[in-house]
């Protein structure tokens, strides 16, 4: 008998989709207990469209091929002292921020997708999530392996997991993912698969990685693009999730819209770190943060929201504010880190004159008006031997945990500040976006582990800031922190290059 030829869709359906069954002996709700509490209505899981139809055998085969290529590069990098090929030792600081701030998020993504990959009642969705889970594990592990050779030659990488759980600015990315994982399974998917993967990660993994290539960092661009090849699957999953939820029941629309609003805003706040990495930490420039934002959010995200309009989904709330902020956030973030450079686990510096000119050219509306004068002043102080560091601990936004540094887009010279009261306590925010998020779920955000509060409460050792940095954060003082100028990183680089 000649076997019928099966196409990819039918084959996948037969091999995978029919594995589950209707329970007869136990209550299915007890096996999948978290599907209902968020108010999302799923009437028929079988309507789930599998974004890609990878069976495990194909998965092993293609992923092994990717890994083989990737590790061949890592081996070559290590054997040939690849760290000497970066454009400028300042660049390596972007990689430090990546390992301490981003890689642990990949781990959280692995955990979160394992959770939903166990919890969803539909086998198609579960399998897609499980595959994303194992991919995310791949990402954290390849990142650690990619950055391991840097750790051997540069400071600031050495205790990345310990730092992620404690350091003040790392609570921005950590709280972002803690927030998503502590939400219900559908919120998690909208937060990570859709808002984060589909709308925002492209900004980190495409233009920033292209920038890594442009700065001679073979390991980072290789893991970045290799990871991104998985992300393309994840993004497609994100889009399928949204379409599925919206098609399942009209009552899902307002819930999903609320999550889109929340996670878009939270994502934008998180991305201010990436903006600064692009504009300030890549010595060889590929494109400005603003340009990247225009291509990867305004154009790509705009197309997406136009497509979703048929379901009654609109652009995320405060997208208009963000459109203005693209001219500002990278400058505000780098300035903040420059001012708190003694308390950062990587080096900061004043942009070179050529870089300042590049910023003026890329940000004609804002840079000369608001930001260049600060740098000119910092240059003057530095020349006088008075490189300044802010000594007061900053106030953090209760929601995004970024220090109060964003300005009001109606009046960009003024700090943006909001507050609200809950059960007799006052809470502080950087924006309407963050304040709205708090007001919607105050019981959640009153729990925020705010690093500055924790320091004041004596939960981080001390009593002085240097004690906290050294003993609680595990910084090697004088090596990990402070200005690039005069750092051991810079000294070693000079020695290597003169040898």
């Amino acid at each position, binding site marked *: *008998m000649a*076997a*019928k*030829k*099966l196409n990819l869709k039918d084959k996948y359906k*037969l*091999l*995978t989709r*029919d*594995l589950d*069954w*209707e329970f*007869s*002996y136990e209550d299915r709700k007890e096996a999948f207990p978290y599907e209902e*509490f968020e108010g999302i209505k799923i009437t028929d899981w079988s309507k789930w469209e599998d974004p890609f139809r990878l*069976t*495990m*055998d194909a998965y*092993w*085969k293609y992923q*092994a091929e990717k*890994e083989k290529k990737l*590790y061949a590069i890592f081996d070559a990098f290590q054997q040939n*002292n690849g760290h000497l090929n970066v454009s400028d030792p300042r660049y390596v600081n972007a990689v430090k921020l990546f390992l301490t701030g981003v890689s642990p998020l990949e781990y959280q993504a692995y*955990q979160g997708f*394992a959770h939903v990959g*166990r919890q969803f009642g539909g086998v198609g969705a579960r*399998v897609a999530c*499980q595959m994303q*889970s*194992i991919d995310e*594990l*791949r990402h954290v*592990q390849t990142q650690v*392996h990619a950055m*391991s050779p840097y*750790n*051997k*030659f540069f400071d600031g*990488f*050495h205790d*990345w*997991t*310990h730092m992620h*759980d*404690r350091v003040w600015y790392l*609570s921005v990315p*950590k*709280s972002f993912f*803690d*927030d998503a*994982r*502590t939400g*219900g399974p559908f919120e998690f998917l909208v937060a990570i698969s859709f808002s984060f993967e589909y709308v925002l990660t492209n900004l980190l993994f495409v233009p920033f990685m292209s920038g890594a290539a442009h700065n001679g960092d073979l390991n980072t661009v290789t893991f970045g693009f290799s990871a991104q090849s998985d992300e393309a699957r994840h993004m497609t999953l994100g889009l399928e999730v949204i379409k599925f939820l919206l098609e399942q029941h009209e009552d899902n629309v307002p819930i999903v819209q609320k999550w889109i609003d929340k996670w878009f805003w939270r994502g934008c706040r998180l991305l201010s770190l990436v903006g600064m990495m692009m504009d300030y930490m890549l010595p060889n420039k590929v494109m400005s943060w603003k340009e990247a934002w225009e291509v990867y959010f305004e154009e790509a995200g705009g197309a997406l929201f136009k497509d979703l309009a048929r379901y009654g989904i609109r652009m995320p709330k405060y997208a208009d504010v963000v459109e203005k902020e693209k001219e500002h956030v990278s400058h505000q973030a780098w300035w903040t880190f420059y001012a708190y450079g003694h308390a950062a686990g990587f080096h900061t510096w004043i942009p070179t004159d050529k870089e300042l000119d590049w910023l003026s050219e890329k940000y004609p509306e804002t840079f000369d008006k608001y930001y260049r004068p600060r740098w000119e002043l910092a240059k003057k102080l530095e020349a006088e031997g008075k490189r300044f560091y802010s000594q007061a601990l900053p106030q953090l936004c209760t929601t995004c945990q970024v220090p109060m540094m964003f300005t009001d887009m109606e009046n960009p010279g003024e700090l943006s500040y909001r507050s609200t009261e809950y059960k007799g306590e006052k809470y502080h925010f950087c924006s309407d976006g963050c304040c709205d998020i708090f007001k919607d779920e105050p019981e959640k*955000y009153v729990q*925020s*582990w705010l690093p500055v509060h*924790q320091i004041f409460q004596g939960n981080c050792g001390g009593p002085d800031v240097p004690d906290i940095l050294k003993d609680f954060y*595990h910084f090697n003082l004088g090596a990990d922190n402070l200005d690039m100028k005069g750092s051991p990183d810079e000294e070693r680089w000079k020695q290597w290059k003169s*040898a």
Partner: protein
Amino acid sequence: MTIEIKTSTLEPVRQTFANLERRFGNKQATRYQEATYDVQATNNFHYRPLWQPDKELNDATRTDIVMEDWYALKDPRQFYYGTYVQQRAKMQELAESNYSFFEKRGLSSHLSDEVKASLVRHLIPLRHVEHTANLNNVYGSAYGYGTAITQALLYDGMDRLGIAQYLSRIGLILDGNSGDALSQAKEFWMNDPVWQGQRALCEKTLVIKDWFETFIVQDLVMDTLMHDLYYRQYDEWLNANGAQDVGMLTEFMRDWNRDVSRWADSVFKTVASESDHNKALMKGWVETWRGQTAEAMAPLAQELCGGSASLDDALAALDKRLKKIGLA
């Protein structure tokens, strides 16, 4: 003093990450170590899970097992993602060539009707059992503690999905890609008395709360019994009944079992030898589930291998394994 030797300027400042240095000293770490130890967050979580407010996000108390250091559960195979997928890719390459050889040569036409009927009735429904194993292992990965054990559980979970898909492919080979064998097998799984004990057991394992208990039931009790019944006894019966070629289609499962037992046994052994508390818990779980599982499989064992399968032999294999890991 000036140091002249040029190569000395390229000496590393440190050999490895600080967490690994604290554990193993200042020396080069392996890729497995870098990818595994202390990667999971342990402190200062921001919010309680809405879906489980009595626990932290990462919380060691989702099982009653207590470990001083969950990273004691290292994987003797040293599997991190890269080594895992490359190892499985080799296995799948072999499986792929076996499956295509089997299909191309039309080897299913050599099977007797009795064997074909048995494959559909007894082997193909195992895909649903493997799907349960997928969920049970992913459960441990999601709620377990420490990267050492949770990553290995995820690899195991994905393996089970792969095995479920291989079993499904055997069905498609038998029915010429119509899917009829799969529907028939599912009908047996859903309604035939021979499978109902097993199905009830699978459903029951899916509502266990303690992830380590799930791990014991699934990967120790159920897997050992199933493996002995199917990949030893049934395989022998197929060989004796002119169906030795089917062994090509289940070679992956046999190789896989060897690989995964090495890891699971090492974990069971380490946890049991950690404390009397752990050992007592594990023994209690084995006791609870050994009998139930045997009972659930009994009707199947009675029919399997033309009625000659021995559940006692399978139980003996389990007892031997329990002894090896210090739980007898």
